[in-house]
C-alpha cells in the first residue's frame, strides 16, 4: 500500500491520524482553516493546504474544496476523523467518484446507520434489539410536533427526543413531564436543524439506571468482521461522554460474547468495512438495546487500543489499502480509562470556556497516554469544540487504573483557561465510579444541584498567598513568555457571527 492521506479534520484526531500515517510510511496532507494556522496538527503533515472560507461550512465542511485540496496536493486517500464530514455519505461518495480512497465504510453503510430512524429499522430487521420507541418522519414543524406528541403518549414518560441526524447530544432532550414536551421538542428540532439541516426527531423510552456500553468493530474487505470488546461510557454530562473505560467493570464474558455478536451482526447487516462502533444501552434488567452505530473512528477509541493491543487507526489504513486486518484473536488485558478534558466551567453548568493556555503541562509517567491537539501557548477560542485533550491511563487492574488517573489529574496543570480537570478528579472518587456501577445519570445523581469543587480553607488561603507572592515577586514576566502574543485578550465574538456549528 502506498497512498498519500489527506486528513479532513483538525485538532487531536488529526494529530492522531497524521502520526499513524507517518509511522506507516504514508505521505500526509492536512487541510487548515485560517483560524487554525499554526495549530499542532498542521505541523505534523508533510503538506498543508489552506482552506478558503470564514465558516466551518465553507472550510472543514466544504466537500468540493477538500476534494480539490486532495487533487492539488497529490493525496490519494481521505481520512475524515470524527465529526465534520466523517458520517456524510454524500462526501464518501464524492471522494470515491473523484478516484480517491475513502478511509471509512461505504456510503450505503453510512446512510443506513447515519439516519438513526433508518438504522433502528435496519437493526430490527437484522434481529438486533432496539430501544422501545417510535420514529416520526414528518417534516413540517406543526405536523411533526403533533405526531411526536401522540407518539410520546404511546411510548410513555420519561422519554428521550433524539434527532434522526443527531449525535454528541445535539438535538437531544430528556422529557420527564408531558407539560415540558412541546418546549423540549421545539428546542431539539431547532438544534437539529441548525446542526444537521434535518429536524426529524424520534422518541425512545428513557431507560433510567442504564449503562452505555459500546462495542468496537473492525471489518476488512476480505470478509472478516471482528469485535474488539466493549467500552463503558455511561458517565455523561449534557449527553456527552466524559469518562470512558474498557473493559466494562460489570461485564461478564457471556454478555460480552452476546453483545459482541450483536455488534458484528449489525455491521454485517450493512456490509460494513472499516472501523465502527455499535452503541448499546444495557438496562438494569440485563437486556441490551441498539442505540446507534458510529460509522467512523470514535473519540474514546484509545481505551480499546490499550486493553486489546490493536492500533485501530493503523488498521483503518490497512483496511482502506485493501489489506487484511492484522489483529489476531481478541485478548483483553488490564484496564484503561479515558477522561475528556474540556475548556469548560464545570461549576457553572459545564459552560464552555475560552482563554490562553498560559501553562499546559500534562502529567507524565508510565501508563499515561495523552491525545491532544494543543500545546502551551495556544489559545482556546470559541470557534470549535472545547475539548482540549483526552487523558488515558492503563494499569493491570481497574483499581490501579483509577489510582493512576487520580495521580495524573492531580499533576495536570492548565492555567489561563477554566477546565474540568478538578471535576474529573472528583469524579474518580464518586462511589459509583469507584465500584464501577455507573449509569448514564451518575453525574446528575451525585451532584443534583450541579457540581462545585470541594476545597478547604487552607488551600484557598495558600492559593491567595501564591497569587500575592507571585504578584509581589513580579513572576508574571516569566510566565507570560509561554503564552502567545494574543494571550490576555478576550476573543472577538465576531469570529462566531457567520458560523453554523456542525
Amino acid at each position, binding site marked *: 500500500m502506498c497512498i498519500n492521506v489527506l486528513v479532513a479534520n483538525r485538532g487531536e484526531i488529526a494529530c492522531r491520524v497524521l502520526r499513524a500515517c507517518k509511522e506507516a510510511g504514508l505521505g500526509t496532507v492536512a487541510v487548515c482553516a485560517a483560524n487554525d494556522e499554526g495549530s499542532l496538527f498542521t505541523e505534523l503533515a508533510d503538506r498543508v493546504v489552506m482552506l478558503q472560507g470564514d465558516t466551518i461550512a465553507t472550510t472543514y465542511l466544504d466537500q468540493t474544496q477538500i476534494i480539490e485540496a486532495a487533487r492539488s496536493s497529490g493525496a490519494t486517500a481521505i481520512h475524515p476523523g470524527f465529526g465534520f464530514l466523517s458520517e456524510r455519505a454524500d462526501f464518501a461518495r464524492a471522494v470515491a467518484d473523484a478516484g480517491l480512497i475513502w478511509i471509512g465504510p461505504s456510503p450505503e453503510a453510512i446512510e443506513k446507520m447515519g439516519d438513526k430512524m433508518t438504522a433502528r429499522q435496519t437493526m430490527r430487521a437484522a434481529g438486533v434489539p432496539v430501544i422501545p420507541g417510535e420514529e416520526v418522519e414528518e417534516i413540517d414543524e406543526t405536523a411533526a410536533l403533533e405526531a411526536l406528541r401522540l407518539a410520546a403518549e404511546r411510548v410513555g414518560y420519561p422519554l428521550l427526543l433524539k434527532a434522526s441526524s443527531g449525535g454528541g447530544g445535539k438535538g437531544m432532550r430528556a422529557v420527564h413531564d408531558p407539560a415540558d414536551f412541546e418546549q423540549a421538542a421545539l428546542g431539539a428540532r431547532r438544534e437539529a436543524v441548525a446542526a444537521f439541516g434535518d429536524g426529524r426527531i424520534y422518541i425512545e423510552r428513557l431507560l433510567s439506571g442504564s449503562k452505555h456500553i459500546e462495542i468496537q468493530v473492525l471489518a476488512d474487505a476480505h470478509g472478516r468482521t471482528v469485535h474488539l470488546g466493549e467500552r463503558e461510557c455511561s458517565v455523561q454530562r449534557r449527553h456527552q461522554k466524559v469518562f470512558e473505560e474498557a473493559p466494562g467493570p460489570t461485564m461478564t464474558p457471556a454478555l460480552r460474547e452476546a453483545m459482541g455478536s450483536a455488534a458484528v451482526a449489525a455491521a454485517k447487516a450493512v456490509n460494513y468495512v472499516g472501523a465502527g462502533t455499535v452503541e448499546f444501552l444495557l438496562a438494569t434488567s440485563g437486556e441490551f438495546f441498539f442505540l446507534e452505530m458510529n460509522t467512523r473512528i470514535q473519540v474514546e477509541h484509545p481505551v480499546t487500543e490499550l486493553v486489546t493491543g490493536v492500533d485501530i487507526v493503523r488498521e483503518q489504513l490497512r483496511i482502506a489499502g485493501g489489506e487484511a486486518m492484522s489483529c489476531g484473536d481478541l485478548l483483553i488485558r488490564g484496564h484503561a480509562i479515558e477522561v475528556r478534558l474540556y475548556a469548560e466551567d464545570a461549576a457553572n453548568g459545564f459552560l464552555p470556556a475560552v482563554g490562553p493556555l*498560559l*501553562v499546559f503541562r500534562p502529567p507524565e509517567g508510565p501508563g499515561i497516554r495523552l491525545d491532544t491537539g494543543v500545546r502551551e501557548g495556544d489559545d482556546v477560542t*470559541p470557534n470549535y469544540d472545547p475539548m482540549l485533550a483526552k487523558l488515558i491511563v492503563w494499569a493491570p487492574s481497574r483499581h490501579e487504573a483509577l489510582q493512576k488517573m487520580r495521580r495524573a489529574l492531580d499533576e495536570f496543570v492548565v492555567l489561563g483557561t477554566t477546565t474540568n480537570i478538578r471535576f474529573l478528579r472528583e469524579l474518580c472518587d464518586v462511589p459509583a465510579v469507584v465500584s464501577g456501577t455507573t449509569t448514564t445519570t451518575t453525574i446528575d445523581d451525585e451532584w443534583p444541584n450541579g457540581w462545585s469543587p470541594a476545597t478547604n480553607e487552607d*488551600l484557598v488561603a495558600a492559593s491567595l498567598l501564591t497569587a*500575592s507572592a507571585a504578584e509581589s515577586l513580579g*513572576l508574571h514576566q516569566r510566565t507570560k513568555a509561554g503564552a502567545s502574543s494574543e494571550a490576555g485578550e478576550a476573543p472577538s*465574538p465576531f469570529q462566531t457571527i457567520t458560523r453554523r456549528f456542525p
Partner: protein
Amino acid sequence: MQHRFVGTGDPVEVNLVKEGGAWTYEGQRLEQYGERLKVTLADGSVHLAHAAKTGDVWWVHLNGHTFRWERMEAGASTKANDGGLTAPMPGKVLEVFVEVGQTVIAGEALMVLEAMKMEHRIVATSDGLVTAVHFKANDQVTQGAPLLSIEEIN
C-alpha cells in the same frame, strides 16, 4: 505587602508577611527556589505551586486544585454583582423570554444564548423584578456583557 483579589465570592484582602526567605498568610507558607514556588500548608504538607498571570487574573495550581484570582487595584469597587446577569460566553442571543417589569422566580429561564455549538439558558438566580433587558434575539453578545438586570424581591 497587601493585595486584594476577587474570585467567585466577595473580594479578599491578603496581607503578606515576609519571614526570612518565606512569605506567610494565615498559617500557609511560601518559598521561592530558583524559578519555582514551594508552598507549605498549615498541615505541614509541601506542594509545588504553579502561577501564571493574564490580564489582571492570576491562575494558581496547587495540589491538584486550580484557582483563578482577579487582582483588584486599590480603590476599585468591592461591590459584588448586584443582580446583573452577564453573558458567560461570547455568542448570539437566540430567544428572550422576559420583558421589563415582569416578575420572575429563581430558576426561571430568561434568555437562550448560542455559543460553541450549544444552547445555553440564562436563568434567574433569585426571585425578582426585571428592570432592564439589554439584548434581543439575534443580537451578538461579548463575554461579560450585562444581559438583564433583576431587582431582588425578598
